[in-house]
């Protein structure tokens, strides 16, 4: 199953969840938020939300700015 995480192509097993996708990037996901195809996925729904083919996942955090 091909999904895009923060603009990078990933090949993940079918049934991979948002939570597993986040852990591809970081082991300590505090202060992080996730959008799946431009919709926010609440943290409480990460483990129950399965990714589908060609999904776009954005994992954001706060950085210096403004």
């Amino acid at each position: 199953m091909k999904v895009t995480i923060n603009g990078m192509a990933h090949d993940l097993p079918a049934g991979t969840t948002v939570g597993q996708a986040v852990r591809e990037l970081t082991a300590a996901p505090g202060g992080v938020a996730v959008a799946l195809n431009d919709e926010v996925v609440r943290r409480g729904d990460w483990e129950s939300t399965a990714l589908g083919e060609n999904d776009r996942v954005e994992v954001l955090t706060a950085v210096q700015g403004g």
Partner: protein
Amino acid sequence: MDTRMDAAPDDALELGGEKFRSRLIMGTGGAPSLDVLDDALVASGTEITTVAMRRLDPAAQGSVLDVLHRRGIKVLPNTAGCFTAGEAVLTARLAREALGTSWVKLEVINDERTLLPDPIETFDAAERLVADGFTVLPYIGDDPALARRLEQAGCAAVMPLGSPIGSGLGIRNPHNIELIVESAGVPVILDAGVGTASDAALAMELGCDAVLLATAVTRARRPALMAAAMRDAVVAGRMARLAGRIPRRRYAEASSPAIAPATKDR
């Protein structure tokens, strides 16, 4: 409270239903390191500081959030980098999820070269975010009509620019800033363009309720020293505004008694 503000001890900034002693809101962009930023934030006395939302970088060392949490500074996420209302609304929602705050500095720019705010997209995003329960602080041009419309739309403040972001050109249209202040029923926060302390003082003298700045401090040769200068400039400008400046006159007005001196032979 800083003893220098004893002249106006109860002069809190009321913003979004909260009270703040400092009227200097800091940004975090442009600091060469988190240590330099930390020193500057402490020296500024700020109680609110902006952050941007970006893709998680697994290799990043340390976090600006750690600095803000350690110092007890309120985190104000912005929507910098957004060009459309849709992008800004999504970014605000992600910030709310990531940071646990419904405050957002709404920033929707129109082009990369000037980074000037897009009034149409900003207004559209403001309406949607207010409806979604956000405390919306929109960055706008120095446009009194747009400021009024955003206030009517339910924004908690308006944040007109002095001049383009990072330009250090100061306040290019003080008259418009005064017009915005005169009709505003929400706090007016001068945002962007401050180059040095006198710009921040002028903003407060014009009647702004607070000043937001970043580059002027973070890219100064000595950031913490400039942060302290900005802290004092905002306090001085606020006190001057409350004190009431004298009117400008074309000619001199003697400040000494108008009785002729004893030796008057000439």
